[in-house]
């Protein structure tokens, strides 16, 4: 910034702009809030920072964060994917079943799981992009259908730890320098997705389609192909999350991961991805998922009554979303005012 612009009267507004700018960067704010929250909780409940506590919490957050990256891609294109929880469930169960029957070696079973997720995501993509069904309706339908598939595959049975190879669930508790293995995986996926979205043409297409589909079509973007791609990737990442879900829990039921779609979407929205499409980052989405996971854990550690957990959880989501909207509203008004001047 050029120094001669600074006039005494502008001093305050510049500080304000700086704070506003920081507040507008949802990723930085969230990271800050997570650090402050962790510090406060760590003082009140010292075992918060222990590996025994933080390990499982961040491992679970990593699974949700991976699904949230896929969901963020879909929401960026101004669509929504409600079916992720069913995809996670059916993939987790199928991989468990393959291993129980000892039909395939473990890595191949994992690949099958991810492939199944991709296939289910492509189904969503076809229904939305080719058959032009609004995504909320399409994925509401596939939410039921995929879950139904899961029950059909399960056929009234469940997968126990005994059915799986020895030491299968060890990977979930493995860590390097105190950081769980799954967290590294999540960081890698988030990193790749962030770079692709930020610096490649394909990545920018998601934003283009989401912010103005007509304009994107005018300049030659194949928006329906992009939407299809978003759903396919979302399904694939839900597949990855499903494989990890199975490794994490060992016991898999036909209704595994029920209700997690809302957790995934809440993470994405708290992470600052606009439901109206075209704005937000996958880093924010992943941080949002981590934040909601930590909040839950912190409340339990701080001794919040079990009955109040959900209430506070809901309030946090609403608060995060409305502050975002209020900041945007203020910025718009401020801009409008400065334009008038």
């Amino acid at each position, binding site marked *: 910034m050029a120094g001669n612009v600074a006039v005494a009267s502008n001093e305050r507004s510049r500080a304000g702009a700086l704070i506003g700018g920081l507040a507008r960067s949802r990723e930085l704010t969230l990271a800050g809030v997570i650090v402050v929250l962790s510090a406060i909780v760590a003082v009140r409940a010292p075992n918060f920072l222990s590996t025994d506590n933080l390990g499982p919490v961040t491992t679970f957050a990593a699974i949700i964060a991976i699904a949230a990256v896929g969901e963020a891609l879909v929401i960026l294109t101004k669509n929504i994917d409600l079916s992720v929880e069913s995809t996670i469930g059916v993939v987790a169960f199928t991989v468990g079943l393959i291993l129980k029957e000892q039909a395939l070696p473990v890595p191949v079973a994992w690949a099958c799981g991810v492939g199944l997720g991709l296939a289910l995501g492509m189904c969503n993509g076809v229904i939305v992009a080719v058959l032009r069904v609004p995504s909320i309706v399409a994925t*509401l339908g596939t939410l039921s259908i995929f879950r139904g598939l899961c029950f059909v595959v399960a056929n009234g049975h469940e997968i126990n730890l005994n059915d799986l190879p020895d030491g299968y669930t060890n990977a979930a508790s493995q860590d390097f320098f105190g950081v769980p293995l799954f967290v590294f995986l999540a960081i890698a996926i988030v990193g790749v997705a962030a770079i692709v979205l930020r610096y490649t043409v394909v990545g920018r297409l998601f934003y283009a389609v989401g912010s103005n589909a007509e304009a994107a079509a005018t300049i030659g973007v194949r928006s329906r192909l992009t939407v299809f791609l978003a759903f396919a990737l979302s399904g694939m990442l839900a597949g990855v999350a499903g494989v990890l879900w199975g490794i994490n829990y060992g016991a898999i039921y*036909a209704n595994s991961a029920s209700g997690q779609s809302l957790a995934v979407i809440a993470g994405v*929205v708290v992470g600052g991805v606009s439901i109206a499409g075209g704005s937000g980052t996958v880093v924010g989405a992943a941080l949002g998922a981590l934040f909601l996971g930590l909040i839950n854990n912190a409340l339990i550690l701080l001794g919040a009554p079990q*009955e109040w957990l*959900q209430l506070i959880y809901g309030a946090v989501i*609403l608060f995060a*979303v409305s502050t975002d909207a*209020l900041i945007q509203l203020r910025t718009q008004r401020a801009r409008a005012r400065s334009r008038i001047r």
Partner: protein
Amino acid sequence: MSQPSDASPAPTQAPVAAGGRPGNPMSGARALLFASARWEVLLVAILAVLIWAGMRISPFFIQPDFWNSANFGASISGTMEVAIMALAMTPIIITGDIDLSVESMVGLSGAVLGVLWAAGIPLQVGIPIVLVVGMVGGLFNGLLVTRWGLPALVVTLGTLALYRGLANAVLGTSYVTNFPSAFTAFGFGYVPGTQVPWTLLAFLLLAVVFAVVLHLTWIGRQVFAIGKNKDAARYSGVRVAGLRTALFAVSGIVAAFAGIVLALRYNSVRSDNGTGLVLTVVMIAVLGGVDINGGKGTIPGVVLAVFTLAALQSALRLGGVSSEYQNVAIGLLLIVSVIAPHLARQFRVLVDRVRSGRHRPVRDPVPGEVVR
């Protein structure tokens, strides 16, 4: 898509009429064609096919015996809570919003009702209080959406968690039961001397009210105006924010009422009452032909969708299809219900094109020509 029986005469008649003179005789066939391409007509056909199939499986299907769970009537009375909520969801979706928090309002209203009853407050007092709670919850949704300009999907996703949390906070893990029999009779009893459940009567009365307001009054016209184009509606003098807020308040009240119905039907309340219902509510609305993007939809369509869903459920149950497969069928029906009108519209365009091509190759009317 199952080919409805009463749609088939229209396409076969059309070419015959088109072969003759272009004029009055054709407009009748054309009107029939247009009418049969309406989603409500298709729904009636689907419903008829389902009832026929149900009767084939078992004559038991249509008997007015509401106590057998595989029976059409039992399926209907089992879906009344979602049906009632779908009525209030319809105008909200028509304005382009959505209310995901209704299922949590069912839990919250039940919890409040239970706590009040356990505290010795009679239900005559408790029920109005619960309805007010519903209205406040709905107003909160509406104000967040209209004042702060937040997307309804996001707001009600938040209050979905928030109201469920309130229900947990109010009632905890305990449950309340033993409501007075005079009230539980409303939940699972019949109108005296008939085989009509009270809840069905309540639903039909509410449906008439919603249909009249939405389709025959200026309020309804404004709802559709908002759904078609918010800015245009505002410039035409529609109080867009006020009406949207009011619709959310109505949705809250109706959801609270559905919560009361559920509590009285089960004769028990728990804080998790109604979990997972919202998906069915949205499903019924969409199945009833309400456009999820706003601007289109009818209450009769939604009422038909309720009966179609109930018929499908009981037919599948009678046919020995397990509930897991039932979900697959319902999910498929939902997706097909959106694809079908789309295809029907394309089919209509195709028919029009073929027919106009037969005796009038000119697509655009030349200046001065009288356009029929």
